[in-house]
């Protein structure tokens, strides 16, 4: 089949998935009856008063094809859908009902995107590293107390719901011990002005620590268990016995031989997990009042801000698709069997 054909197939697949997600989005947010209909909600929203805005949205969402004497000439569903499709593909999300600003502005300029990327980036990197390292070590020491302890610890933190770990962390470390602040991205006093960069980094780290720690605790378990399973499978192979017989130090055997060969499922899984992160971060951000994309989608539900919900859901699905695609590419590049088929 070859690498090129494989990648081509995967790209076409990705595009089909994007179309599917846009269709699903359209169905959920635009077509479902009742107060979830976009314009009905707009009219009911107490923050939106002027009819010009309503007209503007009716045109933007393609509900009205045109206006005759200020009255709406309704567009067919297919027209609406094609307009919606184009909008989504070009990332034109419209304006938030709540603030009236464009959604891309609200996402980037208010620092929400940066905040979420910071939180997720730090958590996944640390979780991946810890999971890899501990996973290899537990596979090497299979059956020992260290193995049992690590596996049990991973299973426990994996089954603990993130929001509960977050609540406990706030209760113990923020409320009782007062080591860390209980939430937020930065202190309120910074609205008037931010201190010099070194102090900024120190204080931001303080605010980042608890949410990142909670997310890391949740993610490292899955990585550890997968690494342990795949490395254990590799350690059963003959070439490992050969390597040991050759007299190679155990460290080389573990990391250079076993881990490298076992890394394929780990890497692809890590890419997949990253896709699901954004959805999972919603809860952590909500507990810690971490002003990021996850918190925004939650806040938009209470304020019935449908354009935001729609845009965020679409973005999260896109992230999952992108992560899947990344994972496919990595798989194609790393697995030599694909290349030589």
């Amino acid at each position: 089949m070859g690498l090129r054909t494989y990648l081509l197939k995967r790209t076409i697949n990705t595009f089909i998935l994007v179309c599917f997600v846009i269709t699903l989005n359209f169905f959920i947010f635009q077509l479902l009856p009742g107060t979830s209909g976009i314009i009905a909600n707009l009219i009911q929203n107490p923050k939106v008063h002027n009819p010009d805005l309503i007209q503007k949205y009716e045109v933007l969402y393609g509900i009205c094809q045109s206006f005759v004497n200020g009255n709406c000439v309704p567009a067919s569903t297919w027209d609406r859908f094609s307009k919606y499709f184009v909008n989504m593909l070009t990332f034109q999300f419209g304006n938030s009902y709540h603030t009236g600003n464009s959604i891309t502005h609200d996402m980037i300029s208010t620092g929400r995107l940066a905040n979420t990327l910071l939180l997720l980036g730090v958590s996944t990197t640390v979780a991946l590293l810890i999971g890899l390292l501990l996973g290899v070590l537990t596979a090497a020491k299979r059956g020992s107390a260290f193995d049992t302890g690590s596996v049990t610890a991973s299973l426990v933190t994996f089954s603990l719901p993130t929001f509960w770990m977050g609540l406990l962390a706030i209760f113990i470390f923020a409320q009782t011990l007062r080591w860390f602040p209980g939430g937020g991205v930065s202190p309120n006093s910074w609205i008037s002005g931010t201190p010099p960069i070194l102090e900024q980094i120190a204080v931001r780290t303080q605010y980042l620590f608890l949410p990142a720690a909670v997310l890391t605790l949740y993610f490292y378990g899955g990585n550890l268990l997968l690494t342990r399973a795949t490395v254990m499978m590799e350690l059963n192979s003959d070439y490992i016995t050969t390597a040991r017989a050759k007299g190679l130090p155990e460290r080389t055997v573990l990391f250079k031989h076993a881990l490298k060969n076992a890394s394929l499922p780990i890497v692809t899984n890590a890419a997949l997990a990253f896709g699901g992160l954004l959805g999972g971060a919603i809860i952590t951000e909500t507990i810690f009042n971490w002003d990021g994309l996850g918190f925004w989608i939650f806040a938009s539900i209470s304020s019935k801000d449908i354009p935001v919900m729609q845009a965020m859901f679409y973005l999260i699905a896109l992230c999952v698709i992108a992560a899947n695609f990344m994972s496919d590419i990595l798989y194609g590049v790393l697995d030599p069997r694909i290349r030589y088929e």
Partner: protein
Amino acid sequence: MLSNRLAATGTFFLALFIFAAVAAPVLTPYSPQGTVVSGPLAAPTWVKYIYGDRGLSQNVNFADITAASVGGTTLTSSVKGVDSIDVQVSATSGGNLLVQESLNYPYTGAPNRFTGGFTVVPSGPVTNQLTNATLLVDRLDSNGQLVKQFCCLSSQKVNASTSFSQTIDSYDQSIISSLGIQGVSTPAQFIFGTPARYNYVLQITVPAGFHGEFLVSGFKLQLLGNTWGLLGTDDSGQDIFTQFVYGSRLSLYVGLVATFIGIGLGLVIGLMAGYLGKLVDETLMRFTDMMLVIPALPLLIVLSFVLGPSLNTIVLILGFLGWMGFARLIRSQVLTLRERPFIESAKASGAGTAYILTKHIFPNIIALTYVNLALSVPAAIVGEAALSFLGLGDQNQITWGRMLDLAHSAGSTTGLTWWWIVPPGIGIAVLSLSFILIGYSLDELFNPRLRRRR
């Protein structure tokens, strides 16, 4: 073997929760919502072993109802039951009729709240006259002498020939203003702040020439303490242990039903995709890929917003989101089995598709079901809990996730209370963990690739 010990632990805890779910009405006589058992945010009673006795109080009731008359009245009374007394009074000159109960309040900490009242029903001929009915509390010293009188918990003019009643609650604004402690203290703290002997008194003025016979019933004052029970109370005074035990029912229901829906769907789709050949396989797998791409929690959030939060909707959505991994697994196993000689010989003997599927293929994949079942249940439980925590779950049921949500919102003002947030989280965690442990050991048993090299 490690997996034996893990499986045993998992099964033990699972059995514990199933027992709690089934025996809930036996384990606790209260209902999870709507029964106020004690003061708000009461700590568990065993807290006294950690903090010492200082400042902690429990629920107590006034008892020993008696009647007395003051001034120129004659009185006969007979106790009719707990909190119930029949009095016959006639007055030559004016005076007061006192119905009272007493209490020895032993705690150094004040109660959180008190509730009570009375009902008076004429039980014989009564002269038609307006009188005053007042509720008050007397604090006495060790010799029974009045130290301080707290008036008035309620005061009303009544027509003595008709029945009248009153209920009081220490939250009533009228009591706060009557005692003059607005913004300074609460009635419960102000009145019952020291351990002493107290009398709870219903005082009815008896004008000259008055006579009548009454039944005073429901005469009680209940002091709700700041500790209660095994797990304390939430911010409305409802028992947390009850909510915990009934929550296990809901969690088990959601976890098991959602998983069964998912497994059922996955089985059907996987079997069809694996066995029925190229075109069906391709279509179904494309569809599975599309479903896999949809992010679960955001979809749950959005759908519960759109469709309305109800427990069964959530269970259905969780089921419809959980079948994909299992379908893939079943499909790959069926693909392998399909090429085996025994299937070929069955086909040669003239067996139909349905027969082969049910009699040959199905028993060979059933082992995969157990593992996947055990590992999918926690996902469903935590998914529902996450949704309830965000406030999007069923508003009529108190699930563990909802308990955490209520604790979180109450805690944003007063700070988190540990006896409210720890039990539901531990419940979710231990229940998920027991399923995961069982699944993990089943996996070690059934998955040949994980066997140790000897």
